[in-house]
């Protein structure tokens, strides 16, 4: 069952001579448990694709369907509700809220959805525990290392009943070891049924995906299933 469907999505910025066509009739489907990597040169529309898929931006044309719900025509509040219930977003520079502890950052989408603070906090701590950060749950973001911050961001993206995980260069600000670890976590989340889309320009990290989509000048120019990558080295059951 597909969690994300982009049908003929286009995105145009500006008008007249300043018009920039970031996406041109892009169609993409991501199924439950599938991890898709999006690659392409700078300016190819990777990040725009992700922000439209994450309902952070509306397409100029085309249709976006997430977990069976058409995004087009949704109000801002409905889109916000969809984000906090179904979509997890991981940014290159973590985007954690400085005033909240790691556990509170993770619990934030739940609390915004009306879950009582205590219940949300417990869920947040559990999510951090699964990522090996239980002991850092009370730390503020500026007390965490880069890798730890990104793991907190991933925990925030998967906490609750998330169906779609979107990651924009999640390892861009990390060293290679932490980058690999982050991809492993995303891969693990997908194994539990979450659909994932990862924007990266690193072929090594893209090899973690089930499928790689190549963008150029806002168009999908190729889609391929990569050869077995490092994941194949992980023993089944891990």
């Amino acid at each position, binding site marked *: 069952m597909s969690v994300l469907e982009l049908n003929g999505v286009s995105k145009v910025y500006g008008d007249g001579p300043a018009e920039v066509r970031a996406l041109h009739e892009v169609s993409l489907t991501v199924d439950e448990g599938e991890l898709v990597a999006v690659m392409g040169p700078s300016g190819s529309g990777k990040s725009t694709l992700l922000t439209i898929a994450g309902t952070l931006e509306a397409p100029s044309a085309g249709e976006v369907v997430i977990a069976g719900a058409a995004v087009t025509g949704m109000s801002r509040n409905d889109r916000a509700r969809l984000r906090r219930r179904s979509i997890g977003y991981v*940014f290159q520079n973590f*985007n954690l809220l400085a005033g909240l502890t790691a556990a509170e950052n993770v619990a934030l989408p739940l609390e915004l*959805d009306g879950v009582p603070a205590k219940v949300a906090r417990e869920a947040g701590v*559990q999510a951090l525990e699964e990522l090996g950060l239980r002991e850092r749950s009370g730390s503020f973001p500026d007390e965490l290392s880069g890798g730890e911050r990104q793991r907190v961001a991933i925990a925030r993206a998967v906490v609750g009943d998330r169906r779609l995980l979107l990651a924009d260069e999640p390892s861009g600000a990390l060293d290679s070891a932490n980058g690999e670890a982050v991809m492993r976590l995303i891969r693990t989340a997908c194994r539990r049924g979450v659909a994932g889309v990862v924007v990266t320009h690193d072929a090594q990290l893209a090899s973690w995906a089930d499928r790689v989509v190549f963008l150029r000048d806002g168009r999908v120019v190729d889609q391929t299933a990569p050869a077995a990558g490092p994941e194949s080295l992980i023993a089944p059951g891990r």
Partner: protein
Amino acid sequence: MTVLTSDRPAEVKGRAGGGAPARRAVVRWGWRLFRREWRRHLLIISMLALAVAATIVGLGTATNAAKLSADPEFGTAATILSLRGSGPQLSDDLEAIRARVGAIDVVAHQEVAVPGSVSTIDLRDQRPGGTFNGVTLRLDSGRYPTGPGEVALSEGASKLLNIKVGGMWTANGQAWHVVGTVENPLNLQERFALVAPGHVVPAATVSVFTDWHPVPGDGLQLPSRAALHIISRGHPSTAAVDALVLALGTLGLLFVGLMAVAGFTVMAQRRHRALGMLAAVGATDRHVRLVLLADGAVVGGVGALAGAVVGLAAWFAFVPALSSLAGHRIDRSALPWWAVGAMLLLATLTAVGAAWWPARAIARTSVVAALSGRPSPPQPAHRFAAAGTLLLAGGLVLLFLSRPGSEHPRAPMIVTGTLAIPVGLLFLAPLSIRLLAAAGRHTGVAVRLALRDLVRYQARSGAALGSVTLAVGIAAAIAVSAAASDAPQPVGNLPTDQLMVHLSPNREAEQAPPLSGDQLQAVTTGLQQIASDIGARSVVPLEQAYSPQAGLQPAHAGPRGRTVPAGYATTSLSRITVSGPGIDISTMNPLYVATPSLLAHYGIPASAVDPTADVLSARTDLQGLKIFTPELRGGQASSEPGTASNAPRAPKISSVEPRIQTLSQLPLYTSAPSILLTTGAVQRLGLGTVPAAWLIQAAGPLTDTQIQTATTAASALGLYVENRDEQASLAPLRNWSTAVGVLVALGVLGMTVGLIRSETAGDLRTLAAAGASSTIRRTIAGATSAALALLGAILGTAGAYAALLVWHRSDLSPLHRVPVVNLAVILAGLPLLAWTGGWLLAGREPPALGRPPLE
């Protein structure tokens, strides 16, 4: 890295809109941010506190200064009845009054001459704690007089007599033991001596204080049939004071709001990315707004409290100075507490309201734009300008229709109009900023960059400009109003470094007693000694002219119970009006002869005097006045025989239309020799001259001791000293308001320019990386500050003048008195100070050339 993975966790169900948990979560985050970044909030809190404090002081000042017009001699009485203080039927008269009007306070008066001075002291037997006049008497030290021979002096009387508590004072032949100092709290300048009830004997007049309101035709006949003088106070209109307080409070809130909008716009911009993150994880627009609104509530509450503390402290410190300025005692607790309380509450709400606007703007920004930290493009300036023009015009029309100056002004229109004008100016701010930026396109890179940044960050620069405009506008309005309300010649009777020594006890004497040669020699020697004793620089003899045909006038009773000695009736420059069979003589300005020594004193060479001129003066309001010379025995120039209304006898007069030469070197003081009769005119009119007074020029302002020394010595010579009177000038208010306005504007500039420049820290890094020196950075800060100051000064002054032109529409003449110095300080001094401040405080090398730290 060790990672545990498990099956997908159980779903955690939430609520559709997030409900209370979501609100708690975002408020908690806002509170945490406030705690973490309280230093960043200091500027906004300081701005709010400054605005609240300024408003509290303003409210107190307006409320208490407005009491100036409340007829201080009345106390709480509605009417004062004055009657002669002696006569066998005085008791019956007072009983009759009491029977007719009910409760009364009775005070007997006697005017007491002060030896050696033209001043007099009112000796009164007012009973402390009187029903109606109790509020006009307060004991400052010692005790109230209770028995015969005891007196308490006001500060003015004590200074004039140079007698302190414990001393003895001889007045009208009776010795008084000074047992205390007293004051009229409603009029600190009042000079009087208080004795125990029933001890003013004989009384010259009796004042009866009552709450009786006489109506036309409501006659009050006394048994003695004596003349009764009835003075009723005007109906004090509290509506005007309330409207003033309301208008000031409204302006204060507007000021608070503008400052808060400027501050919260910056804070919202700083949190742009963080708020974008919040939206990215599913926060609704309402949640995003709530973060900033919670911030506004906390900052507003803290700012209001801090402002209250600072404002009350400033008020307590300012009260003595304000009492001195206002001329009446002001109780430190005499604040409009309801207005202060409402102000604090409304300031907090205003801060929340001010946070709402940027919160709404941020919430409407796309999440991607917020995450990228890009500022929203500025709104088109022409829309604001159109709204501003409408508001400004509407405000002026409302003021026009509010019937200003009438007995029943329309307070709602005054308040609405007063509010609409600065809001209109605020809306004109973006356009004025753009115009200035366009005008500065050919300037150097630093100034150009500073002006363009003001346009780029229009939201906060506009709010800052609005705050500066408001502060400057209020200061300009007060300065212009004070100048308009001041007397045309607000310089008083004499400068502080001069004494006039008169031969007659009345400063407005129209008779100069003749002196023999020996007497003149003795007086001259004595005056030289006085000048030496007080370290004076010169003594200039003053002569007046008289008609030799008139001869000596006899002594007669003068004003204030003093006797005018026999002497020559002196020439004056007067208004002579023929009214039926009689002639009315008024506006009698004494004419002093323009002797060579007097001209030399003012640095006027004899050659500068037009030989055909009759009168010399710097005054320009002498048109229509004539040289008036009383003549008892007829005279050469007699042209309009008749009766002078205020001459001792019924003299014939002569009057001549003078040829007046304007000489700006001459003074404008009312008692100084400011209008001179030329020696040519003396000859042409066939007049004689006689010594009348002497002008003693000191090296500096005279002290009380010096004045007392001169007065004592003059008394021994049979002369009378006149020194500078206490002046009820509004000049201090003008200067204070200008200073406070400029200081507040500079404070606003310092805070907001700091905020604006902090937003462009990236540009500074780029400039530094490109090799820009500290001079460039200093120039940018200076130009930013000075541009806002200049625009604020121009808009504020223009707005103040526009409002005052409408206010004074029925008579624009008071506005001809322009407070040039005050306006120069505002229009030129403020931008200059702002530039200097910006220059001095900027220029530090940016700490790093990398990216700014993330939220």
